[in-house]
């Protein structure tokens, strides 16, 4: 059972968010759609890091894999975009399970596991860069939208369509995470996070449980990658598989609060508008890399003033349950 306060907050938030398109313009909606996208990935990454305690710095692998899966299906195989979503999930999940199994089977832990994830993401980037079928460095382009495009069929449309689509995705991923975390697997994940050896001594099948976290996390990330492909309409290996993307994906949950259900969402709400603002200012005043300076400054402030993230103090103020 979901905690009542948490559930109430989620419902209220959802209701408010559903009404937003009535009062804001398309530009804001498109920014918000991306906020929801990154909040969803943040939630997925948080499953592995915040709950199971396994650091992945190569989540771009799953994001890019999902994006390219969707891109290739829609572009080259003219398959319905709806089919692309489960395929993206499966692609991500398989990759996540693979990297996880490889790492955990050989007791690769902590920062060494993180390095392993970086290696795999880079491997994917380089492979796809040389994969001519997928467009290589020149990129993969989704077919242009025709005037009689049906958003519900092609899963591509205007700002309002993507706003609702990504809101639904976020809601579903949030719900899935909430249910998992409250159940048996959630207890096992948290036990492994706190002290893996102590957990194993009381019967927790640590390796199995970590691989599951990796697979689910990667699967959800793959789905988000698929949506990214649909929104952007074009994919380049350097941007979706690159280290920059891996970092972009994890800033929000870190700032928002690891190991919490609302942290990643809050983090995304804080980061991405700031991102847009930084991009604008950078263009105005020709400062490049402003976004990274902003990230660095934010991280510094979080570490100094709210090391658990922005959500936990807010949650205490709203009197919603402790760190789960």
């Amino acid at each position, binding site marked *: 059972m979901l905690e009542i306060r948490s559930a109430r907050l989620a419902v209220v938030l959802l209701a408010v968010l559903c009404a937003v398109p009535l009062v804001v313009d398309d530009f804001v909606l498109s920014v918000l759609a991306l906020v929801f996208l990154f909040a969803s990935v943040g939630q997925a990454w948080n499953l592995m890091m915040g709950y199971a305690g396994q650091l992945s710095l190569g989540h771009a692998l799953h994001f890019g894999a999902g994006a390219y899966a969707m891109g290739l299906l829609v572009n080259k195989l003219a398959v319905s975009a709806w089919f692309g979503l489960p395929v993206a999930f499966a692609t991500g999940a398989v990759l996540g399970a693979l990297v996880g199994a490889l790492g955990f089977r050989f007791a690769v832990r902590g920062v060494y596991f993180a390095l392993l994830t970086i290696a795999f993401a880079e491997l994917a980037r380089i492979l796809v860069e040389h994969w001519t079928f997928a467009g290589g460095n020149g990129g993969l382009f989704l077919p242009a939208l025709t005037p009689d495009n049906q958003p519900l069929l092609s899963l591509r449309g205007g700002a309002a369509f993507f706003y609702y689509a990504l809101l639904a995705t976020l809601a579903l991923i949030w719900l899935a995470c909430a249910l998992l975390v409250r159940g048996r697997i959630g*207890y096992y994940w948290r036990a492994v996070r706190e*002290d893996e*050896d*102590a*957990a194993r*001594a*009381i*019967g*927790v099948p*640590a390796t199995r449980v970590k691989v599951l976290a990796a697979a689910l996390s990667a699967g959800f990330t793959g789905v988000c990658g698929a949506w990214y492909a649909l929104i952007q309409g074009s994919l380049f290996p350097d941007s979706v598989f690159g280290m920059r993307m891996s970092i972009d994906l994890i800033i929000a949950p870190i700032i928002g609060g690891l190991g919490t259900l609302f942290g990643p969402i809050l983090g995304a709400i804080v980061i991405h508008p700031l991102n847009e603002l930084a991009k604008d200012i950078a263009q105005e005043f020709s400062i490049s890399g402003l976004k990274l300076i902003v990230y660095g400054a934010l991280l510094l402030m979080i570490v100094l003033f709210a090391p658990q993230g922005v959500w936990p103090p807010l949650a205490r103020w709203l009197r919603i349950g402790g760190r789960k």
Partner: protein
Amino acid sequence: MSLLRVQGLTKVYSGLTAVSAVDFTVQRGSITALIGPNGAGKTTCFNLIAGATRCTAGSVTFDGQDITGVTPEQACERGIARTFQIVRPLAGMSVLENVVVGALLRERSVAAAERQAMAVLERIGLGAKAHASASALALPERKLLELAKALATRPRLLMLDEVMAGLRPTEADGIAQVLRELNADGLTILLIEHVMRVVMAVAQTIVVLHHGEKIAQGGPEQIANDPNVIACYFGTGLPTLQGTPS
């Protein structure tokens, strides 16, 4: 009837033999103590039995089945629960949640595990602290939590590593009483202990290790008078220090 049988148990770390060809059995329903000076290899034996460390040689038989080389979670599943010398609570979780993790091994649902966990906590006297954070407990309560986590897995053999260390006599007696009650209900206990008062009062069989080898085994009376045991704790004659007149 033996529940646990250890034969030729050996662990060699490059250059150091921590445990050397140790043989002993733990009778079903007994309380057996494993004693010896620091560095004798007692905790290493526990690690070898419970699967936390790989044996270099030797075998471990539990309830008639060879369990040499199983993983810690497999050993726990088979019915061996162990505690750690330096307690390892799951710090970010509450006392109840800590025990639920253990209970989930045997219970299907989280609700059933919570009921089982609460029952275990009440049994050993930690019920009132169920919702406290595990990191906020004082040492005696941490020891009890360590015990509760192990008990929640419904073990047939409970292995305790220096559970009395750091406790005042009354606190130690409290835990000793709980152990006696659990044993009376049929739980086999193997404990590593330095607090001799407790060992002599509670153990039916004592196994003594020294420098990785077994040097004696028997009842409390026998062990207390065994010259080898006395020698390993006190040495033979008075030691001389370098540079002092003998």
